[in-house]
């Protein structure tokens, strides 16, 4: 019995370690943290951002346990939603840019001066797509 518990704990720890490193590797390769530090002019706080990621990921990993609740106001959910959406917006843009979508598009089609328009097209498309997904029955249910 004891052996079974220990081996389960080892398996769980190993799985968590691999998933955790993969998450950090993903966020790192996308340059999300440097990008935010640059946008807010807070480069010296990189260490804090690192720990934020670690804590956030660890707490997030406990979501399936779902035994506890904060009993907070509904506004809290709205705030968390906005922040979570911002994070996903950063991630999706960064993924597209790792693949050089816009630079290649602009160059191939000789449309480099319209790239600003393309950014807005992506932005509105994603935000509206997400809204429709939640509001129209059949998608998010």
């Amino acid at each position, binding site marked *: 019995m004891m052996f079974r518990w220990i081996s389960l704990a080892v398996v769980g720890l190993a799985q968590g370690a691999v998933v955790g490193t993969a998450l950090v590797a993903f966020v790192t390769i996308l340059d999300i943290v440097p*990008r935010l530090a*640059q*946008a807010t002019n807070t480069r010296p706080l990189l260490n804090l951002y690192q720990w934020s990621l670690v804590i956030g990921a660890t707490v997030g990993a406990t*979501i399936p346990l*779902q035994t506890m*609740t*904060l*009993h*907070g*106001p509904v506004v*809290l*959910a*709205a705030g*968390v*939603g*906005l922040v*979570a*959406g*911002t*994070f*996903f*917006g*950063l*991630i*999706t*843009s960064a993924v597209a*840019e790792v693949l*050089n979508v*816009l630079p*290649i*598009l*602009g*160059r191939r*089609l*000789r*449309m*480099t001066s*319209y*790239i600003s*328009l*393309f*950014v*807005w*097209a*992506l*932005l*509105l*498309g*994603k*935000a*509206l*797509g*997400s*809204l*429709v*997904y*939640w509001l129209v029955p059949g*998608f*998010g*249910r």
Partner: protein
Amino acid sequence: MAGPQPYSDVFLRVRQRITAAPGELLQVRKLAEIAADQETAHIIGAIPIRQVRQGVGTTLVIPAFDLVKAIKQQMPAADIRLMGETDTIVSVQAEETNQGDAPWWGAVGVAILLSIGAFLAIMNFQTDVAMPEVHRTLFYMLTGARSDQPLVLQIPYAIGVGLGIAIFFNRLSRHHSEPSPLEVEMHLYDKSVSECFIAMEEQRAKDEERRKDRPTRGQHQ
């Protein structure tokens, strides 16, 4: 003073990318910026390097070393110092003025393509990562209430997606003191393309030399 000085310092800053018309005779002046005494600079600038024989739409690479060789032939005493690039990439174009951007309706088409693509991509993504389920659990964790469709969480989330993209591409601050990641990517991409052109041209030149070294090979077979 009659003629250039017998011995003169010449600094050449080789340009990375130029455009030329078919049949144009490329002179040193077009390929590089020259810093030397006025008369020397004038003579060196007029030295022909190569005639463009390729047609419109092609690209050729001129090694900076070709410039040195040509100048040394005419002014053996010149002390040439190369700066800048080691090769110049010449894009052959019909008219130098004819390289503006594509028409606006093309750009509108691309914008529509991108927005519809993004519209669907985010939906697929949210289904793929089981986001409705996660949102329901998160809503319970935060408020203690159960909701099948926690729109209070989800609508701000959707707005946040747009906000995140805007932050990523530097669309919010009016003063762009630093280049946006898109501008950085664009620059890196252009640079990689140039480097690739040069590498391909070097390989081609090497292959040609090898063929010249063994001209009879294949005739005996």
